[in-house]
């Protein structure tokens, strides 16, 4: 059974196996969150790797009482995404890659269908306000709770719920317009 508090405590003390368990638990979520923000597979991979390298370097200094572990880890990701856009001098709008490889190719027809769906999703998410986009990526990509997302963003839970609600209302309109 995965008891996060114990695993985190062991990881802080330098237990590699405990860190590996945290890696397994959060890797996909971190990748999804970054991918939705960056819309670029290779850059999302680079940044995902950087998140875990930074986390490994800094975990000895992590204090549970300040921030839950998930929020701490996603804050690293959030800061790296912000740095990425700052360094690139980009606003968060970049053209979609034509050759994106997102999902397993074991079933090409299904993979193609999923890629289209994901492309559509990301196109819609891109049209949201930056704050809504951030909340939607954390809630639906990273699967964080409202409380955790609020901690990552340094906002209160009420604000996160409002951003989530308004974001979904906007996305619903886009989905209806597609039909």
């Amino acid at each position: 059974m995965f008891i996060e508090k114990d695993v985190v405590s062991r990881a802080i003390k330098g237990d590699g196996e405990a860190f590996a368990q945290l890696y397994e638990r959060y890797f996909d979520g971190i990748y999804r969150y970054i991918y939705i923000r960056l819309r670029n597979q290779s850059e999302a991979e680079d940044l995902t790797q950087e998140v875990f390298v930074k986390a490994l370097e800094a975990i000895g200094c992590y204090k549970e009482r300040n921030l839950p572990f998930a929020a701490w880890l996603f804050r690293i990701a959030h800061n790296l995404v912000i740095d990425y856009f700052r360094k690139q001098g980009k606003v968060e709008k970049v053209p979609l890659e034509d050759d994106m490889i997102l999902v397993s190719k074991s079933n090409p027809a299904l993979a193609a269908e999923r890629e289209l769906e994901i492309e559509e999703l990301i196109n819609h998410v891109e049209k949201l306000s930056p704050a809504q986009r951030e909340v939607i990526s954390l809630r639906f990509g990273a699967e964080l709770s409202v409380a955790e997302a609020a901690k990552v963003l340094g906002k209160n839970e009420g604000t996160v719920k409002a951003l989530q609600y308004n974001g979904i209302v906007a996305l619903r309109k886009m989905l209806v317009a597609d039909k």
Partner: protein
Amino acid sequence: MTRKIEDIFNNCLERMFKGESVEDCLGAYPEQSPELESLLQASCALAKRASAIEPGPEFKAQVHQRLQAMLYAEQKKLAERAGIPVWCRRWALATTAVLGFLLIGIGTVGAAASTLPDETLYPVKLATEQVTLTLAFSDMDKAKIHIQYAERRADEMVQMARQGKSDKITMLTGQITSHLDRIPVMEEEQEASEGRVKAKAPHAATAPAPPSEAEAYSKGTEVDELKVALIQSRAENLNALRNALDKAPEKLKPVLQQAIENMEEDYNNTIIIIESGSNK
């Protein structure tokens, strides 16, 4: 009112994330149901699409290995920072282990011999191996023991592959690398210590004397012996792991494939370094 709908919507979302259907959630809030229905359906579509975004298994395994290497390097650095002389560390380790044997009992160590990385007694197995290495008489003996332990790790990897434990496979790959890395290092240490002994001899020339024919022959034979042992070990391990790869579940294959490639490269590098050392 607006605030209320946001809270209700979030409650429904949480319930959906836990596996409840849209209908179940709407049933709990009949008054808001007309407004919520389409929002929850849109959320379902969004969650489904987002969950299809997944990192490639090769990429995931690659990052895992990089992190393992970082951890290994960090542990090595900490050991070096402790600043305790190597002979002292060895004796401390040996003494601790002997006390450990007395306290825990031979039975535990015996039981640990067949344990796997996910079992409680596995650290005892590793500690016992460390003691065996510490107490080995010569560097040649140590090199052979390292090869033997690399084979053990490969056997354990096969077991872990059968159980589908990818994190253990990565950890064991790191350990095999560590065992193989130690073999050429010991050769260098042996040469260095031989050089020191020669320099301390009362009538030694400033430059170390070239090895006699007998010494060169003896060294050459040992290197050949080591090389043969490494080649055999490489063949056996690769064979066992490739068989495991054939039977492994698809999800595990990239990790295992990467482990096989790394191990083969480590063996090849070790053999090359030993060969180049013997040609000096």
